[in-house]
């Protein structure tokens, strides 16, 4: 408890910067953590009215930045996902991926970089801001990025990080593109060859992919399409945008009614159902979306719609901890819909309950268990928290 009290005192220093509601939410989150996370087992049904609104405060931002800051140049432990073709392929992660060798695996490293850029943009006074800028400059230098491009061009690596890692790379590129800062411009320029390669990969892969991947894991097609769409929209890449809109319609428009009770599966980080809604929300007009959604998941528009956060039994186990990521990604999908259309406003408290279930373990201590989930989960939290509309 003592630590919790100290943390809350530190928070009070920032009172002048905050509105009452975010102080309250921080206080509650930290209090919950200080008490003992295992106590927090309240059923979501009971929480529906009183759900605290989570927020990305400077304090949370500083905490969430610590892990990617640490892991972006931490080479081990690492899982390279590599297939060895000869003894010559046995190399260190840094030799194979000089930019994205940290954070346990390539895609986590990519979205770790995204997290830091995002937080720097939102909070220029972030703790360690200068050091973060320095590390970004080192990892994202032109020579390193070119080695990554060469790797992706390898004829045996066509499927490498498809489509999850590709999607986060475009999210990073998009974030740099909209960063009004000399460093942002420089890094965007350095990253551009890799960004171009990923765009080419998408443009080649999507026409070949007859049926979308509907799993709740990394290859989920709808998730990849959503982030790629955002990139295309922000940077004015019409050919990519057109391709995504066309394929999304072909993949999903005729889907029969979905049984959401079948979700989640044990190691899901994404909800196949909500990801599909997330891309269709982007590509369909309002009328088309409402028509389609009324057939695909009609219960979603009922005020009584319920969805309980996924439960995590053991946060020291990386795969079981995937469900925390699922909670964050479900939250951003639900918020995306509520933000776009007022008749889905009732989804907001459900999204908050998902964030509130999974956030305390990340921001309460030292950022969670690094080997298990800490190396990646922060990005999901940041993305979810940023889906809550600003004040």
């Amino acid at each position: 408890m003592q630590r919790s009290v100290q943390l809350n005192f530190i928070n009070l220093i920032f009172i002048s910067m905050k509105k009452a509601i975010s102080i309250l939410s921080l206080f509650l989150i930290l209090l919950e953590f200080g008490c003992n996370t295992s106590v927090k087992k309240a059923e979501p049904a009971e929480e529906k009215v009183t759900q605290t609104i989570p927020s990305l405060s400077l304090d949370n931002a500083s905490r969430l930045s610590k892990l990617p800051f640490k892991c972006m140049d931490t080479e081990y432990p690492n899982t390279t996902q590599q297939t060895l073709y000869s003894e010559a392929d046995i190399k260190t992660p840094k030799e194979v991926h000089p930019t994205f060798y940290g954070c346990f695996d390539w895609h986590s490293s990519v979205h770790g970089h995204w997290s830091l850029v995002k937080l720097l943009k939102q909070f220029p006074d972030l703790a360690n801001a200068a050091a973060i800028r320095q590390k970004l400059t080192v990892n994202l230098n032109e020579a390193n990025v070119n080695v990554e491009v060469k790797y992706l061009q390898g004829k045996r690596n066509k499927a490498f990080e498809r489509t999850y890692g590709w999607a986060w790379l475009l999210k990073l590129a998009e974030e740099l593109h909209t960063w009004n800062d000399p460093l942002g411009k420089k890094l965007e320029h350095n990253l551009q060859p890799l960004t171009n390669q990923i765009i080419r990969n998408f443009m080649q892969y999507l026409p070949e992919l007859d049926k979308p991947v509907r799993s709740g894991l990394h290859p989920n097609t709808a998730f990849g399409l959503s982030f790629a769409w955002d990139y295309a929209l922000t940077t004015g890449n019409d050919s990519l945008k057109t391709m995504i809109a066309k394929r999304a319609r072909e993949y999903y428009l005729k889907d029969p009614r979905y049984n959401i009770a079948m979700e989640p599966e044990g190691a899901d980080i994404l909800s196949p159902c909500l990801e599909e809604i997330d891309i269709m929300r982007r590509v369909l007009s309002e009328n088309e979306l409402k028509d389609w959604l009324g057939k695909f998941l009609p219960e979603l528009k009922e005020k009584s719609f319920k969805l309980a956060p996924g439960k995590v039994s053991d946060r020291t186990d990386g795969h079981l901890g995937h469900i925390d990521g699922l909670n964050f990604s479900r939250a951003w999908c639900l918020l995306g819909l509520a933000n776009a259309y007022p008749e889905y406003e009732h989804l907001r408290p459900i999204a908050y309950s998902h964030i509130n279930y999974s956030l305390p373990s990340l921001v309460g201590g030292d950022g969670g268990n690094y080997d298990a989930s800490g190396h990646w989960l922060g990005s999901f939290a940041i993305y979810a928290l940023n889906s809550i509309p600003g004040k």
Partner: protein
Amino acid sequence: MKKIFVIISMLLLLSCSRDEKKKDMAIKTDHFEILNLSAKEAGRLAAIQLRLVEKEYPYRMGQTIGSKADLGSPSKLHPAFYGYGSWNNSVQGYLLLVKFLKKLPGMSNADSIRMNLTRRLSAANINAEVLYFQGRYSKPFQRTAGWNGLLLLAKELHTWNDTLGKKLEANLQPLTTLIVSNYLEFLPKVEYSSKGTAAGFAIAFDYAVIAGSDSLKAMISGRSKDFYLKDVNYKLSSNPSDLEQSVTGLQEADIMRRILPKEEFRVWLSKFIPELSEKTFRVAPTKMMENKKKKVPDTDVEEEGQMDMSRVDRINFNKAQCLIAIADELPEYEHLRTAAYENIIYSLPNVVVKDEIKLKLLQTIF
């Protein structure tokens, strides 16, 4: 020519009269016979399998590297199971070699297979595998697909009445014991089932039964009930783009058939997949995406899309196997055999022309 012969023999099976059911069933569930394997053909396939388990590269390590010292070649890190693309494949490859020896002990290359098994599955090599599994970052290694493969191999050895079989079973035992204890530690923590969970449970349950492991049996039984007992109204094919949807539901029925008393299973199944009880029930054979068929593989290793050919055929055979098992258990589901045969007949021509697929099928369908 052979293709036609096999199809004809399948059609003959179909026309068998009902009163010959018992004999008929024995044939249908024996895939060596369905594939019409002569000793010569089996020897040829075994030779291919032997070459594949010895082929070190390419190899998907699936490793979490703790430091530079952890880097190593497949044969160094996995002296028993370093070949055939991955650890799990390699285990499956040895499973098939054991099956060949059990079925056709006099096959021409039996001696070289025995020598290879003796060398690769030595006590020292298995101990090195155990050490790998005990490594700091190896806890989720091969969980649970590879674990299941290992239990299949252990079961195959346990039921092999042969001195080599006994010796290899003893060599493998430390790894088998480790996998069983990993399972017992892991399963209580699993909140949600995944694709493949039910199929894995069936394998682990069968192993527990023959090995007399009551704790594993009770654990599988308990978790199966937690996950599946309340499931209702499963649609085998409501989502045409989910290749595995049809087989996932049937695999769930397959584990529940094992753990529930017959009457309870009957009631549960009627609620879980009501459409199965319709006399006209059919489940379309899973088909491969058209343009995947034409594509040249990106790599030599099994990867998303690349082994689709074998995957859809395995799905079809697995579906058939689950449907036939229900018909065997509950006579009112006799009509499911027709649906099962349609799936087998669809995939059979693919299987008989491709050695790699034949091997995969012989490994995974038993």
